């Protein structure tokens, strides 16, 4: 539950800059900044957790704006590589900075027993925020930038300010996620926030759908709960009558499927990889789009025609 929630917060942190067309693989780096910054507050200075949470988020957000400035000038794969490089640099710094334990990792972060409440409170706040954003001028400006930056600028949208804001906000949210993560696991090191985490965050949003704020929610729930579902599938397999799986091709394939459908990490990721490829072929816009939501809403007699 808690990890699903933290993943969701991370997915949102990717979603905000994505709304303005900025794809960041560096969210793991911002998460790391949040984790370390809040850790310094609670461990080294002995201040209470909420202060650490705010501090982690703010530091990460400020660094986000600083990184956002150069990111303004570049886009597409250049931006992807820039954020990737940023995340790597953060990893190296975490690995070498002796104040926070260098390669031994940051140990002894106080355990926060109310993490669950914090996580879901933040999610609720974010959901409300995104709901309001969707209808606000800021939200519309972001969508305009995503669709066509030049046209948006001509129409009087302050592209620079909004892109920076989106990038900083994304970093801030990632910082919060990092802080929550650190105070739940009580230990972080440079490998916790690696490239693959950044890639996984991107997956949550892309699979769910990047055009609406419900997309990341669906994507995160879907991908996080998928391994559980595969486990259930395995339990169901035991109900298959034994006579069916007696003869040659079936016994081998049964064994293989049974062995495959378990909880282990690499098998989960193999399935993730296949899903990602299939998704891009069949539905590159993600599971949920604005159209789908309207259609579902209409199905239940809600929403405007």
């Amino acid at each position, binding site marked *: 539950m808690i990890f699903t929630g933290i993943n969701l917060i991370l997915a949102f942190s990717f979603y905000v800059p994505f709304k303005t067309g900025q794809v960041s693989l560096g969210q793991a780096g911002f998460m790391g900044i949040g984790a370390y910054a809040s850790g310094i507050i609670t461990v080294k200075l002995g201040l209470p957790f909420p202060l650490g949470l705010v501090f982690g988020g703010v530091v990460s957000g400020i660094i986000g704006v600083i990184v956002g400035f150069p990111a303004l000038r570049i886009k597409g794969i250049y931006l992807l590589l820039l954020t990737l490089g940023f995340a*790597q*640099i953060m990893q190296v710094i975490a690995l070498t900075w002796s104040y926070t334990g260098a390669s031994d990792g940051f140990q002894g972060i106080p355990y926060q027993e109310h993490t669950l409440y914090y996580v879901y409170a933040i999610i609720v706040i974010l959901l409300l925020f995104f709901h309001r954003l969707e209808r606000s001028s800021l939200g519309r400006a972001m969508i305009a930038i995503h669709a066509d930056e030049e046209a948006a600028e001509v129409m009087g949208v302050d592209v620079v300010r909004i892109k920076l804001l989106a990038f900083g906000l994304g970093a801030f949210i990632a910082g919060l996620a990092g802080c929550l993560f650190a105070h739940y696991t009580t230990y972080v090191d440079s490998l916790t926030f690696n490239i*693959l985490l950044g890639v996984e965050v991107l997956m949550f949003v892309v699979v769910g759908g990047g055009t609406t704020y419900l997309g990341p929610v669906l994507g995160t729930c879907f991908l996080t709960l998928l391994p559980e579902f595969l486990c259930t599938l395995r339990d169901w397999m035991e109900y298959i009558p034994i006579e069916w799986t007696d003869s040659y091709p079936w016994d081998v394939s049964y064994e293989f499927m049974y062995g495959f459908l378990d909880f282990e990490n690499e098998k989960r990721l193999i399935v993730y990889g296949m899903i*990602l490829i299939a998704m891009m072929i069949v539905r590159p816009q993600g599971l949920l789009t604005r159209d789908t939501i309207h259609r579902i809403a209409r199905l239940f007699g809600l929403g405007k025609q």
Partner: protein
Amino acid sequence: MFTQQLINGLMLGASYALVAIGYTLIFGVLRLLHFAHGEVFMLGAFIGLHIVLVFTGVNIYVAIVGAMIGTGIIGVLIAVIAVRPVSNKYPLAPLISTIGVTIFLQNTAIYIFGGTQVAFPSTIDPNLYHIGGVTISSVQIFILVMAVALMIALWLLVEKSKTGRAIRAVAESHETAALLGVNVNYVVLLTFLIASCLAGAAGVLDGVKNSAISPFMGLEVAVKALVCMLLGGLGNIVGAMVAGVLLGMIEILSAAYIGTSVRDLMTFVILILILLYRPTGLFGTRVVGD
């Protein structure tokens, strides 16, 4: 000492260059960042290792050729399964699809080969040669010669042959090339084949050099090779070669004279500097109308 470090840097740079060439070839033809290319490199190393292990006493050249054939097939399969069916309407879709391939291949490798380092047996008699105060081993000479030979072969193929002309034509414009009678689909597959073969050979060479391989080696090299691609200029093959060697040298020299922890940092500082001040790379990008 300095010359010694330069040679070490050259060794490292050679494998970066071989992978970076693949990236830049595919980017030139498809405008696609083929994220899974590093995994192809890793699989090449594993195929080479298994050829050496299964047929004991086999020549290392056979392992390299075998790995090249294997990764060539894998590369074409990636193109057919994960790249071609993805529509270009969503600019990010093909990239994310290859990220999916990365995750899939890396974890399949972990599943099959285990998530730990595997020793790569030495197949070349280790002889040390002393040339004017510099020590160079037969393994190093072998790797260097192979890498240079592959690069020259590739350069000849792309710049001098008819096929190469077709590849360059497709890189300029799919439509124009198709109008002029070039089979674009075939050229795209061929590009994936060539790029993957090079990566496979680089994988085996890397295994020979480090005498250990692991399923995680792909991502590491992939990121470095991406930096090389940018450094050399997108779609610029010779640029990628030079940038690969340059990056290898920078890494080794900064590790030797500043400190090992700076080594990876240097790569990414270079990456960010290039992105900010010279996005076309040191030698100019060959990609038109991007």
